[in-house]
């Protein structure tokens, strides 16, 4: 599903963000990129989300080499990847339902279709009871759930979440982990980046440790 090899990334200032990164995630697998701040997790996720092009090395997603994709193909692939960036914040002046409908409509769905998909996604993440809550009213765990709903709304091929446990208490983190595991068990390949520690129940997943831009284990 995801195969990364010899991936390097350097900032404009010459700082190495990723150094010879190798990573492999099979279809339907749940993986965690664990590492301290500035370890290169977010950059790696953005590279995998086709949000930025790789400088050197190879990223294969569903067998497609990201570096060799045309702009059009890269855009198509990007649309098939559900990505929640670090510090995700919902649209504060819109309701939970409107948040998802907004995303879907901007992606080209008509209102009825967008609402149908939004309701299905919100049901999957357990936010049905909060449909009319404003974005600013959500607690951190609900924000994460909304982020997940937004990302999985269009049945993506791959689901990436940057820091899903940030700012969550132990119980909320366990709840979010359960949600991620549930999403993964439906067959969706899932990769999340976190500074750790992972919730106790996360034993049945692949964990990749990233330190100073290098995969350490």
């Amino acid at each position: 599903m995801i195969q990364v090899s010899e991936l390097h990334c350097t900032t404009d200032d010459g700082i190495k963000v990723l150094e010879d990164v190798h990573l492999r995630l099979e279809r339907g697998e749940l993986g965690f990129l664990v590492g301290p701040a500035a370890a290169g997790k977010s950059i790696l996720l953005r590279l995998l989300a086709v949000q930025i092009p790789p400088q050197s090395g190879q990223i294969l997603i569903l067998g497609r080499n990201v570096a060799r994709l045309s702009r059009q193909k890269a855009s198509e692939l990007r649309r098939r990847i559900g990505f929640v960036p670090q510090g995700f914040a919902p649209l504060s002046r819109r309701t939970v339902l409107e948040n998802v409908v907004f995303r879907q409509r901007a992606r080209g769905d008509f209102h009825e279709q967008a609402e149908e998909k939004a309701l299905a996604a919100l049901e999957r993440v357990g936010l049905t009871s909060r449909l009319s809550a404003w974005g600013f009213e959500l607690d951190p765990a609900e924000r994460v759930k909304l982020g997940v709903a937004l990302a999985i709304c269009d049945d993506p091929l791959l689901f990436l979440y940057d820091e899903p446990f940030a700012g969550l208490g132990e119980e909320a983190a366990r709840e979010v982990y359960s949600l991620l595991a549930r999403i993964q068990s439906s067959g969706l390949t899932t990769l999340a980046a976190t500074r750790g520690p992972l919730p106790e129940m996360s034993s049945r997943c692949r964990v990749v440790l990233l330190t100073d831009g290098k995969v350490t284990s």
Partner: protein
Amino acid sequence: MTGFLFVLGELLRSLRGRSAALIGASFVLVLFFALAFSGLVLLGGGASSTSPLRLGRTELLVHFSAGADSGSIQAMYTRLIERSDVRSVRLLLNDGEAALRVRTVGSAPSASLLEELRAAQGIASVDAPTHVAFFLSDASIRLGLLVALALFFLGGLLCARTGFKELLSSFAEEIELLRASGVSESTIQGPLVAVGFLVGLTASLLVITLVSLSHLVVVAHPQVVPAAVTGILEPRRVLTACLLVLPLGAFVGVLAGALGAALAGSRNLEP
């Protein structure tokens, strides 16, 4: 396309307060820009050649009274043509009424000539060029319009840029969400260009309407038109002005929108 139109609608819905005021100001400036451009196209020109009732800066129109016979007209013609300050004299006949169009030398008809004509017997009235034409030459008006054109252009773009900055800061959350959702940059930035295009197009359409209506009004009352803008009496020049203003206004609008799109592309938006 559906996504593009949706984002455009949401963007227009986010226009309020300062951003609406600034985009509105940019609309007014683009409107003035288009008006100034139309003014340039319609400025001066064939007053004496195409419209016998319009006067150039060095011209006079001498109307004879109804009872004037051909002999007195001939005598006046001879008197005028022999004067050193008169370049040419032309007889005009309209519905049995006779008039002489007198073109003088120098920058304007002399006061003595005017006095002499007004005191002469058999003359009903003497039309002289308007005051404006004495003070403002075509060249100075043209220069003024060019300066105004530049100022309105720059002002319009500046207002649009600041307005788009305001608009984008109130739309920053949405843009972040769209980017994270894999929505293409053209779907995010395109609507901003479209907003600019709409501003420019609407302003130029308004100017076209104004110019066309003015043309219809002044054709019925040509005496109210200042000598400097007699081009508005000529359908061909009015049509030219309209045809040029439309793409020009739309272009300025697109340029303003492109500034907004560039701001959206900079990724440094603060909600």
